[in-house]
């Protein structure tokens, strides 16, 4: 009997017991669809009035619980730094010549219109994040997707030219730093950390929401740059091995 088979055999009774315990707990939850949280009700009633944003989730993410989001952003940044640390340090010895192995004709054909379009979509998702659904994280990922398309459609070299490491590093660290600095500004002005200083504007306008707008944009920048860096690390790995794969396929 293989190790895995034996282990799964052990897991069956344990898993069943665990599932039973979990189910017992879940059955004890308040019925699905019934209102219960005072905490949630407070935001539903007051968030738009207090923060002049129509997206209540954005108000919570970037203001009421903005401290969480700061931690979240740093998790993202740490993930990026960690990936770079792990993948860069072993790659040193291997040859780093950039090749252009991947060219999809469809994408090459699509490229002229597609990339600016995706980029625009990303920016749009970020900038309306506190008015309609969307926001810094979502838009940031889309923006990084645009950079990725450059690679898929055109060339790795062009991708590298468009997203040079120093610039992307600066954007990532800079975006995260702006988030921290907005918090510090609140502190410096005699309030508490992340206290809003900027006029709230008219609800529903792009220039509304005070610090929320700034934090949203900073997050978008940091996430987009961070994901580009992650892609970069993984893609650099990929391009190294492509001849291998091609040889195997033949």
């Amino acid at each position, binding site marked *: 009997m293989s190790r895995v088979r034996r282990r799964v055999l052990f*897991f069956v009774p344990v*898993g069943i017991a665990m599932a039973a315990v979990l189910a017992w707990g879940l059955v004890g939850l*308040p019925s699905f*669809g019934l209102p219960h949280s005072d905490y*949630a009700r407070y935001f539903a009633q007051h968030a738009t009035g207090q923060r002049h944003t129509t997206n209540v989730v954005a108000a*919570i993410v970037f203001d009421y619980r903005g401290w969480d989001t700061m931690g979240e952003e740093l*998790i993202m940044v740490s993930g990026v730094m960690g990936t770079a640390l792990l993948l860069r340090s072993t790659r040193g010895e291997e040859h780093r010549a950039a090749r252009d192995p991947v060219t999809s004709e469809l994408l090459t054909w699509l490229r002229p219109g597609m990339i600016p379009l995706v980029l625009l979509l990303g920016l749009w998702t970020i900038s309306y994040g506190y008015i309609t659904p969307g926001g810094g994280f979502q838009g940031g990922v889309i923006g990084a997707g645009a950079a990725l398309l450059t690679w898929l459609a055109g060339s790795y070299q062009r991708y590298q030219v468009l997203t040079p490491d120093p610039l992307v590093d600066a954007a990532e660290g800079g975006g995260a730093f702006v988030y921290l600095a907005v918090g510090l500004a609140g502190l410096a002005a005699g309030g508490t950390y992340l206290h809003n200083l900027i006029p709230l504007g008219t609800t529903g306008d792009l220039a509304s929401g005070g610090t929320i707008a700034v934090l949203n944009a900073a997050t978008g920048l940091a996430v987009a740059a961070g994901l580009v860096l992650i892609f970069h690390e993984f893609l650099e790995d990929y391009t190294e091995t492509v001849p291998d794969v091609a040889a195997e396929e033949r």
Partner: protein
Amino acid sequence: MSVFPYLVAGVLFIAGLYGVVSSRNYIHLAVCLTVMQSSTYVALITVGYLTNGQAPITKGAKPGKPLVDPVVQSLTLTDVVVSVAVLALVLSLALRAYRTHGTLDPDEMREMRG
């Protein structure tokens, strides 16, 4: 209906855990971890749902209908970001392991370590 959504979260949780136990490949294992993490999204979003509720966007909201819980949605957003970071890290660790061992099978790797 009153507990079915919660049980789906439970199923995903146990399924993800089973995947970790039964996996013979670190890439597969990493994806199973994200399935397990998805169970927490499902749990959070379901506990915040209100019957006949509307999305927590006040622009164009219909008056009189309650908003669903926006707090759990913000928590889930954070959770999604965490999952990306964790997946990237686990995969880069797996890649490093592959470079030194030439295998992605956790058990094979264990044997090599002696």
